[in-house]
């Protein structure tokens, strides 16, 4: 079943024409292109209270409202909203679907204006740097010179780091959560498994499934299932499911979902394909794989030389996708650069996904950091 058209999605769009092309890291120029984004709260008179929330691999711009496709709560409603930590009564919150995404921003599922056909795998390979450059254009469009804060977890954290590195004057504070300055070999390996699962689905049709009226949902679901395991932890899986059986008293000696954990993963796969485009998954995983600040700058410290950005780096003890050791590397590089940095490792068994969940210690830390930054920036505190 094909995905619903993005035309009907709520929220804002801005299209940058041929006169404002986006020069991609690959050397290719993208024009025109559209960014779909959501905003919450009001920009103050000084235009100093904007927070850019960067979404993760499979996130989107619907950060703090009911998702228009799934009907589920926004992906970070635990943190963003009126009276929440990222208080939309005080801050102007922006969240944009990344370049290469599938929720209205230009990506492989949209029409290539040059050919009148769906981009598919003709879409250029994009990078974290490209995503951030496109977001900078969006800020220009919104008339925001400097963000109060750029924040994100996982791939969103990579974007926060990239923002601070490439546009230090446009960022007052940055909060990279559960991320790293590079994608590790293990993470690239997991992404490759996901991509191969998609490409092995006969409905992928070499990337042309939309034109053929097909959708590689089986492959995409397997990709999601494999990835989802990496977002949790062994302890969390054991706590949530153990070896419990799904609606039965004994194993069936077959390949049905006997175990609760199997049923859960299948559900994750099935619901994911209703809202996500398989080619987008290929492109965005690639963007993460290519991220490597050391390769780009020589040392990570050079990427942040003389930065005035205030950083708060946060990691989670049970995150094995972006382990604390990788956050510590960020901190060491920032220390070497003389940056103003706070770093907290939160004890939790919830794995990588802990940043999306209700983790009181995490929220306390984040709230305190933002309060401190408000004081320095002359914004009202909680």
């Amino acid at each position, binding site marked *: 079943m094909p995905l619903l058209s993005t035309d009907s999605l709520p929220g804002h769009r801005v299209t940058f024409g041929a006169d404002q092309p986006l020069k991609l890291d690959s050397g290719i120029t993208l024009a025109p292109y559209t960014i779909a984004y959501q905003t919450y709260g009001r920009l103050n008179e000084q235009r100093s209270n904007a927070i850019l929330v960067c979404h993760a691999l499979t996130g989107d711009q619907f950060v703090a409202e009911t998702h228009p496709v799934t009907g589920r709560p926004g992906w970070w409603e635990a943190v963003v909203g009126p009276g929440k930590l990222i208080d939309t009564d005080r801050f102007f919150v922006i969240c944009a679907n990344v370049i290469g995404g599938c929720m209205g921003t230009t990506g492989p599922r949209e029409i290539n204006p040059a050919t009148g056909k769906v981009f598919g795998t003709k879409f250029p390979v994009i990078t974290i740097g490209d995503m951030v450059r496109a977001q900078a254009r969006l800020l220009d469009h919104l008339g925001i010179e400097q963000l109060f804060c750029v924040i994100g977890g996982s791939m969103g954290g990579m974007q926060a780091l990239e923002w601070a590195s490439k546009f230090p004057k446009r960022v007052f504070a940055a909060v990279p959560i559960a991320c790293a300055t590079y994608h590790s070999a293990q993470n690239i390996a997991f992404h490759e498994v996901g991509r191969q699962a998609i490409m092995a689905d006969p409905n992928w049709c070499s990337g042309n499934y939309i034109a053929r009226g097909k959708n590689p949902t089986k492959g995409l679901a397997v990709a999601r299932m494999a990835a989802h395991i990496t977002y949790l932890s062994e302890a969390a899986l054991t706590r949530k499911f153990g070896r419990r059986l799904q609606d039965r008293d004994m194993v069936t000696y077959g390949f049905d979902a006997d175990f609760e954990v199997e049923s859960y993963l299948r559900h994750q796969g099935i619901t994911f394909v209703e809202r996500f485009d398989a080619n987008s998954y290929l492109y965005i995983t690639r963007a993460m794989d290519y991220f490597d600040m050391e390769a780009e700058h020589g040392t990570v410290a050079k990427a942040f030389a003389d930065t005035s950005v205030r950083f*708060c780096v946060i990691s989670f003890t049970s995150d094995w996708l972006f382990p604390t050791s990788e956050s510590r590397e960020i901190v060491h590089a920032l220390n070497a650069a003389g940056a*103003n940095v*706070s770093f907290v*490792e939160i004890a939790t068994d919830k794995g990588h996904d802990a940043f999306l969940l209700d983790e009181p210690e995490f929220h306390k830390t984040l709230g305190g950091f933002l*309060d*401190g930054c408000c004081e320095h920036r002359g914004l009202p505190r909680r």
Partner: protein
Amino acid sequence: MTATVRARADLRPDLQHIADMIAPNSRALDIGCGDGALLEYLVHAKQCDGRGVELSQTGVHACVSHGLSVIQGDADTDLEHYPDQAFDYVVLSQTLQATRQPHVVLSHLVRIGRHAIVSITNVGYWRTRLSLLIQGRMPIVGAPDHRWYDSPNIHLCTTRDFLDLCKELDFVVERGLSIDRRGSARQVTMIDRLANLRDEQGIFMLSRAKR
């Protein structure tokens, strides 16, 4: 939740002595900053650009949620990444005895900071000596909630030991304060044997020898 500036009177006496050694508007790094009492004072009362390093999660949480710039880290492993002379002052208060390699840590302090301020608990204090002599049991120094086998303090020393090490490492001891039980301070010099017996704590400002 608002970060209240701790009043001067609220600072632990040894921390107040350290704070008094630090010039306003300077850059200071507090290693083993605990709940951030000194750091908060330096930032708010002395307008310092203050940063901290703290091992315990509760300490780091307390600091960061009060808006202080503190990283969760370890004096033994996280100092090598700081560039030379990055701070005007590097403070290590009541932490040296808990490090695995005090001499290495001290060398980093004078490398990272133009001045290093180190406070130690003096095991040569007469009450400590007497308690060992009379009771025949390992004195519990600097960690009253612990026993000898679970104390974090693995490298305790006397004031005299400490000053000997400074000499060995070729540090300049710019200032020395010896703190008695009531918290009042006296200047000490390299050769002050009496302070080693009389006073419970020592605070020293060190720097790297000019070459």
